């Protein structure tokens, strides 16, 4: 299973990666530093992930534009995209869902909640949702 983390913040990426790996050490994690990086990676079919964790506030092509491009790309429309951002702004939330984000999750401030949130996202989108789909 493969997760693509699109985030320019090294700290968040490190926390997210360590949390994901502590739950499933076989998980393949690919990291893109910004939107442009992510879209380049996604062009290669071999990099097609099972889940994309997408930050919004990034230099260059931000999360919203990245999501738009993903949803326009053949073969990527069905890949679950979870927005994982510090923004609680209503306009960000609405725009993300308009662009067919699968979930919008605000990055929790404290460590415990952060870890719990990552665990829940991982459990749902990499396991529960897949099970329902295959059934």
């Amino acid at each position: 299973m493969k997760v693509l983390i699109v985030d320019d913040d090294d700290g968040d990426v490190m926390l997210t990666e360590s949390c994901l790996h502590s739950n499933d050490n076989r998980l393949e994690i690919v990291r893109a530093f910004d939107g442009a990086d992510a879209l380049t990676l996604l062009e290669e079919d071999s990099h097609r992930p099972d889940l994309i964790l997408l930050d919004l506030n990034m230099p260059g092509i931000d999360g919203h534009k990245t999501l738009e491009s993903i949803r326009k790309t053949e073969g990527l429309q069905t890949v679950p995209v979870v927005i994982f951002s510090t923004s609680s702004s209503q306009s960000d939330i609405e725009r993300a869902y308009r662009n067919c984000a699968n979930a919008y999750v605000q990055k929790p401030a404290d460590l415990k909640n952060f870890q719990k949130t990552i665990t829940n996202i991982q459990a749902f989108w990499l396991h529960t949702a897949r099970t329902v789909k295959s059934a």
Partner: protein
Amino acid sequence: MPEMIDNPQRVLRLTEKFAKVGFWQVDIAAERVFWSREVFEIHGRDESLGPPALTDAIRYYHPDDVEMVQSAVDDASKTGLPFEFNAARIIRDDGTERRIYSKGEVETDADGSPQRIHGVFRDTTAEYEQAQALRAAKSRLDLLVESGVGIWEYDISAQQILVSRKFSNMLGFGGEEIRVAYRDFINAIPSADRELVDTTLQRHSETDDPYLIEHSARRKDGSVMWVRSRGKLERDQRGTGRRIVGWTEDISSSRRTQIQNQTIFDTVPAKIWLKDAENRILRLNKRAAESMGGSVADFEGQNTYDLFGEMAKKYHDDDLAVINSGAPIRGMVESYTPNEGETGWVTTDKIPLGQDGKFDQLLVVSTDITSLIEAENRVRESEERFRLAADGASVGIWDWVDIESETEVWSDQFYRLIGYDRDELPASLNAFGDLLHPDDRPAAFAAVDAHFTERKPFEVEYRLKHKTKGYRWFLGTGQAAYDDDGKPVRMVGSIQDIHDRRVAEENLSEANTELERFAYIASHDLQEPLRKIQQFSELLLIDHGETLKGNGEVYLNFLMDAADRMRKQISGLLEYSRAGRAAVNIQTCDVAAIAREVWADFSASLDADGASLEIDGKATIQADPELLRRLLFNLIGNSIKYRHSERPLSVKIHVENDAEGQSLSVSDNGIGFDNSHANDIFKLFNRLHRKEVYPGTGLGLALCERVMHLHDGRISADGRPGEGASFNVVFPQPT
């Protein structure tokens, strides 16, 4: 006498002479005519010529009468009966015309055939003319009687008055001729005029002076009428007054006019004098008399020199000038000072009266205009005050005097504000329109229309083109005056230079927007590193806590605590900045419901026993519900945070909502504060207490202040150290 009988010829002459009767005879068979001397006399025919032939005699008659005479004579000849005719005309030999009376008899023979005609002949011209004159007089009299003139006859010796039908009818006695005793007649006249009529008639019966009097009379039904009477005395041969024949005319209607004139004369709000050239008062009205301190009777006929001595001279000189020149003086304004009271003002007209360009009388009409002058003065004073105010004010005043016209009046300051001289730019609606910035015209004109039609207050900000400085911002206000029909007739307003303020406001607004954007972004961006500090400090503590030596763990906790505080401050700032950008949405808010929800949110963390919330007053106010919630959240939160440690917290909320306005207060029994800080506590990051004891962001009350600012309302605080604090907020009255 015997002599007369003896000489019948002489008797006939004498008879003829004294009776003015002539004799004539016609002998038909002999065709001879005999005329007496008187007959010659009447015909103006010379006696020496002898009488005319029978056929010529008839020719003396007027052609129109010949036929009548001939037929009368013929009839008499046939019937043997006498004939008679009167007023037949004859033409004398000298050509003059006479009226004659002729009577004749036919003398017949035994067979009955006429032999002679003889008769008398008389000149009746004078009688005829008298009768004619009498008839004319009679018909004139009839006319007079018809026209409402009553005839009467006063028999002096019998002391009786005969009242003609017409006069009796006039007096309401049914039109029957009546004869009354003179005394009764006089007594029937209303007492005011009784003596006048009596003495006039008595004097006339002695002196025969013609008279014409106007007096009142009483009708049968008791009503009073006005009549004009005139009479003529008739004397007998001995010269004794025998009777007075008179006529009386009903002048009630003209008399009414006269009385009306007198009434007008007395009630017109002016003093009126009629004077002659000698300065005598011929007539004056009541007001004039009162102004001179007396009654009409006191002054009528008096000379003003007698009344006022030398003081009268000044007026007399003026009066004479008018009489002599014939040029009236009008609108002469003079002041007067009565014995008691303040100076008054009169305006006087002096009008010369006379005939054919010669004047001998003067009409003086004087009107008191004190109240008018006072009103004028008041107007002038108020105009003056207005002008002073207009010129002294920092605002420029414009006066659109007549809304129907283009003309306006602009104050000095108005001109200064637009940089023009009065001469350069005449004040007018057009000139104003030209000064107005084209983009601002529609709104300004619409506001004027709305003011005229809906009476909406006129207050508009617009740009006017300054002579040298280009367009500048002004605050324009105005108020129209409306007539009774609600139509605007005049509008006065002001312009105030708000250019610097407006520009500053625009700059400030830009700066504020910038600042808010900055605050929003900054707080977001600040959140990130803080979160890292917190999260990794925590991670460090969890993963490597045991390996930390000494105070390592304590230091890490300080780090985390500081980061937490900073995070809270930043989120407060974020909320504060967000509140500034929110659109205010005024609705009816249930204050009690919101307050109880907020209280419930807090009560989970409220570990103090017996804390209570009381709400009284009105239930609702008009406000933005979300902002009101934040306000109550912060105020109640404040009360909870600064509660007194030694007594249970009591929070009281009181809501007012009436014509005066809407407000609410939140009071507590907490630790309070010193009122010298009452204004500072609303400033950002301002704290009155050490954060170790009362942790806070210093943003709560600043946010409250901002909420009220967004509502165009205000907030104030009242603290009593150790006793409690009270926050009072006032919302504007919803429009």
